[in-house]
């Protein structure tokens, strides 16, 4: 525990240092025309979670456009977990490869960003100097801080996410539970119909954080690093889980390994709930005929855990100019509008509508909501990243081996 703390203190120190540095660099004028010139002919290896055919098609579309427009070749490197790419960059650093790295652009956030930032493995700051960066939504706190760590221009916001619960409207006809006590009552009344992905799965751990934010006596405490009061702060969460677990799917003795696995369980009718980070997840899955059209989404009334996901460039990329050109294109109103469209991906935009021209705003459609996605509600910020491993470890001590 102590070494963990030290680790995060170092991180915080580095973060401050990087922030001071950015203040200078962001003002520096980047000659964008020369960046585009340097980018021409370069190949960008883009490491991203590749498990969703719709997202892969969207990136392929972006690849076609940047090839045509900027002469940049975009190659999607699909990974099952972006941590694979993070460990690869770490291994390259250990092997002394400071140029010609295997990753040019990566899709990350949270603890993966924290790891790379702490080990000084990121190129930049670069994100604030992109021409399209001025369109970003400055009022969205999740775009400047990634799990409480300042992004410091080392990564570019790409999309937004809100922790969403989806339920089967054909099985739950009354208004769904929207606070922890109501959810617990529902779980008790419907044995074996609720579950969540097993931490340390990303969605599973996010569920723990969402519940802790709702249940903790002082939620603001979670914005600070973990310390000796961990047991006291998290006690309400364990009380809730202890009460819920006997009534979960498989009596809480087995869990789905991932949110997609839980999606299959929901689709096949083994459970009535699905947890996910993209509010349009069900709308897209219904279009893809992975889920029946009776699925509905809901946020906790008190607020949904929210964050942004980002693009970053590793320190040893040899195509950083082209990587920035690709990132800038992905931030353009046209690319962001296509990304937000559930016919293509359905990922919420990071742009401020007020910063767009009327013609650009029109690209985003009329803003009509599909039946499966919940109405936007209050936002709960991610806890400090040190809570993630601490919660995962505590969960695994309590429930991981029985």
């Amino acid at each position: 525990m102590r070494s963990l703390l030290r680790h995060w203190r170092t991180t915080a120190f580095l973060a401050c240092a990087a922030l001071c540095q950015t203040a200078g660099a962001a003002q520096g004028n980047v000659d964008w025309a020369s960046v585009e010139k340097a980018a021409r002919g370069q190949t960008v290896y883009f490491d991203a979670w590749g498990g969703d055919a719709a997202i892969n098609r969207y990136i392929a579309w972006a690849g076609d456009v940047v090839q045509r427009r900027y002469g940049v070749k975009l190659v999607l490197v699909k990974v099952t977990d972006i941590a694979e790419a993070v460990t690869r960059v770490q291994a390259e650093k250990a092997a002394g490869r400071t140029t010609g790295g295997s990753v040019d652009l990566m899709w990350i956030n949270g603890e993966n960003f924290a790891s790379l930032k702490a080990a000084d493995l990121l190129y930049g700051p670069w994100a604030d100097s992109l021409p399209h960066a001025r369109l970003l939504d400055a009022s969205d706190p999740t775009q400047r801080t990634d799990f409480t760590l300042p992004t410091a221009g080392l990564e570019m916001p790409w999309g937004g996410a809100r922790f969403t619960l989806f339920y089967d409207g054909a099985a739950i006809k009354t208004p769904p539970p929207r606070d922890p006590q109501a959810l617990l009552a529902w779980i008790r009344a419907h044995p074996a119909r609720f579950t969540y992905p097993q931490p340390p799965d990303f969605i599973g751990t996010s569920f723990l954080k969402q519940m802790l934010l709702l249940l903790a006596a002082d939620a603001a405490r979670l914005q600070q690093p973990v310390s000796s009061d961990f047991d006291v702060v998290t006690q309400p969460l364990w009380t809730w889980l202890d009460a819920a677990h006997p009534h979960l799917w498989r009596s809480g003795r087995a869990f789905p390994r991932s949110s997609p696995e839980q999606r299959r369980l929901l689709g096949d009718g083994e459970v009535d709930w699905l947890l996910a980070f993209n509010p349009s997840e069900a709308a897209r899955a219904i279009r893809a005929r992975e889920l029946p059209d009776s699925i509905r989404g809901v946020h906790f009334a008190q607020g949904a855990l929210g964050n942004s996901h980002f693009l970053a460039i590793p320190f040893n990329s040899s195509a950083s100019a082209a990587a920035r050109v690709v990132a800038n294109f992905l931030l353009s109103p046209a690319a962001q509008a296509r990304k937000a469209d559930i016919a293509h991906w359905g990922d919420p935009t990071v742009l401020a509508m007020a910063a767009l021209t009327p013609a650009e705003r029109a690209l985003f459609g009329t803003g009509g909501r599909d039946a499966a996605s919940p109405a936007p509600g209050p936002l709960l910020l991610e806890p400090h990243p040190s809570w993630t491993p601490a919660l995962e470890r505590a969960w695994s001590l309590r429930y991981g081996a029985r």
Partner: protein
Amino acid sequence: MKGLPIALLLFVGVGPVVAGFMGTVLGGLSASAWHELLLEPGLPIAALLAIGTGVVSTLIALTLSHVAVAVAFSRLRHTTLRLAALPTLATPHVAIAIGLVLLLSPSGLVLRALSPWATGFEQPPDWATVQDSLGLALTLGLIVKEVPFLILVLLGALSQVPASRLVTQGRVLGYGVFKTWFVAVAPLLQRQARFATAAVLVFGLTNVEMSLALGPTTPPTLSLLVWSWFTDANLATQSKAYAGALLLLLISVAVVGLVAGMAKSVVRQRWQAWATNGDRVPSLNLDGMAARNASRVALGLGGAALGALLIRSVGGTWRFPSVWPAQLSIAAWTQGISDMQRAVTASVTVGLAATVIAIGIVLAVAEALHDSPLARRRLAVLLFIPLVIPQMAFLFGMQTMLLRLHLDGTWCGVLWSHLLFVLPYAWVVLAEARAQLSPGYRIVSRTLGAGPVTTWVRILLPQLLRSILIAAGLCFAVSMTLYLPTQFAGGGRIVTVTTEAAVAMSSGDLRSAASYGVMQALLPLAVFAVTAGVSRRLFTHRQGMPT
């Protein structure tokens, strides 16, 4: 001149394993890493689960395989058995595991077929038919996947055992088919198949793919724990992962040693007592019948899992208890057609190159060592190291080696990593085949004035051709199934059908996963068909060629 091919074989087939293993030892030899590892909640249960599922599945699979081979032998049905084993053998572990989930889980095909008319279930029951905490489903999955492999190994070893003579003698003495087989033939066959059995045992102890789909989760098997630490972005977890890989290696070595030791002592004594007790009771045949049906079930389950996968690849939403998907769509097959083409191209080129290179090197070495059985045995032990130690114990270190050589993420790097696993299979088939050729042919040919090259090409090669074709089919099939080696050496840049299947599986996109899984099975089957066709064409009018 003799040393050159041997040096090449050692460099290609053993070098990276040694380098990779050193990397793991260096990474895992820290007190704090072991401290962290031993504090891991559920570690003893995870280790016991790995040992239990690995040992039990290997013992059952081995028994069933012997029974199946005994029956096929007594009825002269080798070819039928070989054909029955091929589909499951060619289908990768991930695909079989997912197919079994689709079949056996509470919302799986079996319960759908029985619901609601027989069971009364309108909703899937909350039964742990997969991912049960004892690892029974995982054990079943391992049996289903390993029986075909062991059957083919045993069938291949039959030619090196005087099975017909032994069976006849046993029958003449009044013993039943099964006792004859298990007392007289099986021990000799097992001697030939001991490396393959060890490989099966270690795979059972250390596999990631099957326990991911079928194994328990609280806690999972040890290999899955180690795997999740290796893929953690936190650097502190990495050294725990190296220590975990070493622990996995220690457990594997200990278990293999223990099993081998027991086979030599306790089992041998029991066997000898059984062989000499003169007991000829026919009831033993009944036990044999049960085992025979079990081996049929094991082979059938593999095919059924493949079928379940196929249905899922074209199915849309599919609520319990419908036996058939509500909508059918071939979107998974058509939408990703360009990705599929790219993956198939990479799989086929790497597979063919690995096959050709492995066979080439092994033929050269087999020629050099055809009259030194001791050297062949020692070389076999070295070559089998990658198969009998956990892949995780050296793949991470090997990745660093490729990185330093600037071969990571390249086609050549992937090819090299595949050769590690393909070479031992090529060796098993070809080295013995070459050694068993009668030396007379070569002597006569040389006496008649032919040079060594001419002799080899015109006299020896045709006699080896059938073995070469068998080796080619086997090597290509092995290359197709490799997931971890491809992922580590290719770094995601080299995309094969197997890595695509894993990515789709991890995201729950069962439809594309199933389409890739089916393709993974089809490619090696196509190669088997081609080699069988060539073999038939070449040998139809030639009698007395070695088989």
